[in-house]
Structure formats: C-alpha cells, structure tokens
C-alpha cells in the first residue's frame, strides 16, 4: 500500500486509535471511580453498622440496669454484667475495624464503659437492691432502715455515665464519617480527572478530524475537481490542460498522464 491510500489509511487509523484510546481512558477512569465509590460506601456502611452495634449494646445494658435497679429485679444482676462484656467486645471489634486516627476515641470509650460498669458494680456490691425491709406491725417499734430508691440512684449515678458513653459513641460515629470527607473530596477530584482526559481527547480528535478534512480536500478533492474542470475545458474549447492545485502521489501521476494525452506531452517514466 502506498501513495494516497497509505496516507488516507494512516490518517483514518490515527482517528480510530484516538477514539479507541479515549474510550479506553474513560472506561479505565470510570472503573477507578466506581471502585472509589464502592470503597467509600462500604466504609460508610461499616461505620454505621459498628455504631449501631455499640448503641444496641449500651441500650441493652441500660435496660438490664433499669430492671435491676429501678424495678429491683435481682435476677438482672448477671444480665448487667453480661451486657457490659458484650459492650466491651463490640468496642474491641470496632477498634479493630477503625483507622489508626480513631484510637484515642476508642480509648476514651473503653474508659467511659468501665466507669459506667463501676457504678453498677458498686451498687451490686452494696446488695441494697436485694434487701427487703420487714413489714412493720407495731407502729411503736423503732423505724426500719430506709428503703433503696432505685429511680433516684438511676438518675443521679447511672444516667450521667450512660449519657457520657452515648456521646462517646456519637463521637466515634461522627469522626468515622468525617474521615470519609477527604476520600469523598478525592472522589470528586477523580471524577474531574475521569472527565478531563476524555474531554481533551475529544478536543484533540476534533482538531485531527478538521485537519483530516482539510488535507483530504486540498490534496485529493480539489485536484480531482480542478482536473475534471480543466479536462472539460480543454476538450470543449481546445485550451491547454492546466491544473494549479498541488498534486501528490497518484494525483500527480494522473495529472501528468492527462496532460500527456491532452497536450500530447511525453509521459515521464
């Protein structure tokens, strides 16, 4: 393959390659972006699940304490301990899944859980919940020891610890969500990067297409039109065959051959 065919084929192939190239780039970039979105969504989902688990464990502990201290159901004493163990385990799991930057938050969560359990443990040790005062038959008898006010204890001692722990979980939750924002920012940058190379490739392709059109016009179409017109004129009016436009390769050969036929010139070998 040589001459015009070679040039047109190479020109056409470069446009195809560019088209393929820009398609490949967009596919690659969109794939990257999809991966980033999946990672961010997965991370967000995990952080929500971890926080939900922690809050569930705290609520379970709270329910057990309410039953034990306020409703004075001594059967729930063990339940308070098992709920605490479950909470500690969940904090440990959450710590393992979290980033290194959240270590201090989990340390404080551990301390708060421990402090909350200490309050409950102190209550259990005093055994005031299990104590039932004897029924007073004689009104003149000395007064019985004061009755344990579970609701008051709950509000004064337990609730502040419970609230502090809930706030701690909330802090863990918001910190893990805010740690996602740089990644989301990166995602927006990646989205920009995914679009820009494709856009630039398209601009380059348009430029190449315009050049291709222009070169085909001046090196192929224009010489053919000029030759046709000049050949027509020379056949009709018997004027010499003259083509002013630039001819290359086969076009130059064709022009020379027509000149030879019409103007009776010898053909160059």
């Amino acid at each position, binding site marked *: 393959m040589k001459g015009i065919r070679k040039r047109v084929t190479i020109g056409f192939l470069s446009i195809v*390659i*560019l088209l393929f190239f820009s398609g490949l780039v967009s596919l690659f970039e969109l794939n990257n972006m999809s991966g980033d979105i999946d990672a961010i969504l997965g991370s967000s989902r995990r952080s929500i699940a971890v926080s939900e688990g922690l809050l569930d464990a705290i609520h379970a502990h709270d329910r057990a304490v309410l039953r034990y201290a306020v409703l004075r159901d001594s059967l729930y004493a063990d339940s308070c301990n098992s709920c605490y163990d479950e909470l500690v385990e969940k904090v440990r799991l959450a710590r393992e899944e979290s980033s290194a930057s959240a270590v201090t938050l989990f340390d404080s969560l551990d301390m708060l859980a421990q402090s909350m359990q200490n309050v409950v443990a102190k209550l259990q040790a005093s055994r005031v919940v299990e104590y039932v005062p004897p029924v007073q038959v004689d009104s003149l008898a000395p007064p019985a020891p004061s009755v344990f006010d579970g609701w008051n204890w709950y509000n004064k001692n337990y609730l502040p610890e419970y609230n502090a722990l809930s706030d701690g979980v909330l802090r863990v939750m918001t910190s893990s969500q805010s740690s996602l924002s740089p990644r989301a920012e990166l995602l927006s*940058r990646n989205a920009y990067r995914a679009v820009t*190379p494709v856009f*630039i490739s398209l601009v*380059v392709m348009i430029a190449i297409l315009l050049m291709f059109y222009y*070169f085909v016009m001046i*090196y192929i179409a224009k010489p053919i039109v000029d030759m046709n017109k000049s050949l027509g004129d020379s056949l009709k009016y018997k004027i010499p065959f003259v083509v002013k436009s630039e001819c290359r390769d086969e076009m130059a050969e064709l022009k020379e051959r027509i000149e030879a036929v019409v103007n009776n010139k010898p053909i160059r070998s």
Partner: protein
Amino acid sequence: MRISVVIRYIGIILLVLAAFMLMSAGIAYVSNVDSSYYPLVMSSLLTLLLGCFPLIFVPSSDSISTKEGYCIVVGSWLVASVVGMFPYLMWGGEFTVINAWFESVSGFTTTGASILNNIEALPRGLLFWRMATCWIGGVGVVMFALIILPSIGRSKRMLSSVELSSLAKDNFNYRTQTIVRIILITYFLVTAVTTIGLKLAGMCWFDALCHAMSACSTCGFSTKNTSIAFFNSGLIEFVLIVAMCIAGLHFGLIYATVTGKHNNVFRSEVSRVYFTIIGVSSVLIAISLWLSDIYPTLWLSLRSALFHTVSLFTTTGFATVDCNTWTSFAILILIFCSIVCGCAGSTSGGLKVDRFLVAAKMIRTRLRAQRHPDAIFRTKIDGVVQDEDMMGVVMVYIVAYMLLILIGTFLNTLFGADLMTGFSAAVSCVSNVGPGFGEIGTMSNYSLMPIVTKFNLTLLMLLGRLEIFGLIQLFFIRWWR
C-alpha cells in the same frame, strides 16, 4: 499562503513539546510514579498524535514566505500554550481551565506569574513540566524546533528571522545555522553550569535543575511557595544573580566573550549600559532601604536590593523578600527596571536595553540638533551609525509598548484591581517579569484575580513575548490577502 505548510511546522514543534512531556513523565516515574505520571504520559501521547498527523499528508517545503513564517511563529506560541495546559488540566488540583491557560502561557512566555497558592503540593513530574515550559519558551518555541530538527533545511533562515527580532540579530555575524547553534550551546552550557553551581550552593539536584532552568530562561518559576526565600542562603542568591545576569545578556555576546572574540560583553555599549543600570539601581535601592531602617545594615540592604534588581531587570521574578514593604522610591526604581529589562538576543522580555539606549541617544541627538540647526548628527551604537528607519521602528515600538501598558492598566482597574496592582500587573505581564506590587507582590500570586483579568493578562504576556506587532498582525484581514 499555504496553511498546510504552517500546520506541518506547528506539528513539528508539537513533537518537541511531546518529547519534553515524556521527559517530565520520566521524572514522575522515578519519583515513585507520582500523581503526575499518568497525566503527563497521556498528554504526551495526545500531543504526539496531534503533531504527527500533519506530517502524514503535508510534504516538507524548502522555502516559506514571510507571512507563513509569521503564522508558524505566532501559531506555535499559541498552540504550545494550549497543549501545555493538558498536563495541568488532567492533574486537576488548583488548575481550572483559566488557571491552566494562565500557568501555561506564563511558562512559555517566561513571565513566571503563577496562580498556584501551594506550589509545593505539585508532584515532581508536573513541577518539571512547569520548568520545561519556561525553558523551551526562554529560547523561543520555534528556535527550539530549529535547534533540534536539522531537517527543516532552508526554511530555517526564514523562521529564525521571524522568531528573532532584528535587534537580536545585530550581534550575530554568522550564518543562520551558526546562530542557532550558538544559541543552543550557550543556553545548554549556562543552564548546566548554573545547575552545578546551585547544587554546590546547597540545593538538591532536582531543585538545582529546576531553578537553573527557571533562571536561565528568566522565567522565575520556583519549586517552593516562598521562592528563593525558602533556601535562605547567600550563596544560592549569589549563583542566581550571576545566572540571571548572564541570561539577560545577548547570547551572541556571551559566546563571543567565552570564545575570546573582539566584540565581547566588555566592549559592547549595550552591555555596559545593562550593567550600569543594575549597579546604579541596586545602590540607590540599597541606600533607600538602609535609610528607611528596613534593613539593619547597608550590606543586607545591598544584598536584597541587588537580588531583586537583577531579578526584575532580567524579567526573572525570583524573590527573597516581600518588596511591598519597601520604600516608594525603591518600588519606582524596580518598576523602571521591569519596563526596560535585559538585552535583545537574551531570554528576557520587556522593552530591552538596546531600545532604551537608542531612544536615549535619539533624545540627545534631537537636543543637539535644536542647538545647532544646520549640523548633521548621527546616532551611533558601538561606533555603528544607526539606520533612520530602524530608529523609527524602535520609537514606534516604545510608544506601542507604553500604550499596551496603559490599556492593560485600564482593563485591570476596570475589573476591580486597585491602581498599583493593575498598573504593576500590566507592566509585569507585558514585560514578562512575573511578580508586581500590591496584591501581586513578590510573595503573592495571581490566584485572586478575576477570570477576565487573568485572560487579559495572558494576552498581554503573549503580546509582550511576540514583541507586540507579531501577534497583532494576525488580526488584520488585509494582511491575509
């Protein structure tokens, strides 16, 4: 005019740019495949394709007309600036479309004005590309192609005559081929020696190379947010002062001096004026700073004054301090230096000392002619009588230059800049200096400028670099007929 031939030559220049992009990608690769590797490889491939395409169809041409030469030169600067945006745009960060265009034009025209707030956040590959744009632009986009591609043949003469101003050619008494070779050798050697000097002065190899490229092209781009102030080294400042001074001289004179020729730097009237302006300005600024208690000692005042005078006079734009804190007198002298600038035939922009000298001598001749109306006076430079037509062209250029600064100031203030910022931005961009005063001081940047102003300033940079008339001519329809 054959547009296809113009496209072919612009294509060749794009191939040179693609090679530099690939080189920058190489730097990104050895820097642990930093984030600029992929944008640079992509950009180089696209530029390569864009440059190769015309070569498929358009045959090489032995002779090109003056109009074609103008179109190739101006077109090359414009296309290079557009293609130079590709790596910036693909990398993202602070580079919006207008910011990428500003940075690219600023690099190729060796202005050195930046829109980046955090230069140190750029990966090494992109930092090198930034320096490469100014290094290519320093010697001229087309000259670079002429240097690298010997296949251009006879067209070389036409292209080099369009790219180099007539003033710049005065000190070259050689054939075009030799002129191009002299420029190449001088440029490479000065950059290499500066790199070694900066390395010995305490910079790392990468910073040394980048700052050497920036100093030799009189661009002023730095790899650090605080420019040369980051290094806080007198030795580095000294090496850069010498490099900037050399880059502001006519390359033919440097070559002649090194090779022991008669018409060297020490004999040239223009270079004597060049050094006199640097010396006198530095001393005056230093005294002003010392008397105003801005610096505790005269030595410190002189050190800062010399560095900034050389930096602005050679249109480089490196900085060690914020010049906004200096006295009004010092600022005025620096603005004067930003207008006059280095010698013709150097990498610096601006009005050029040569034109300033011609204008000064014409004024003297005019005054003498008024005193002696019947006498005939001739204007001579280096003992050579200057042609009346050439002097007329010089005066027209000076008027056009001042007019451009006026229009630039008007447009800048129209879009919200204060007078000092607007005026110094116009001077700085037309002269391809980079930093100005006010909001665009030596330690600030152009990031806060409105989009329209940024675009206007890039036009001023291009007009300044193409010596005004080259670019303007393209907009006259009659010229195309």
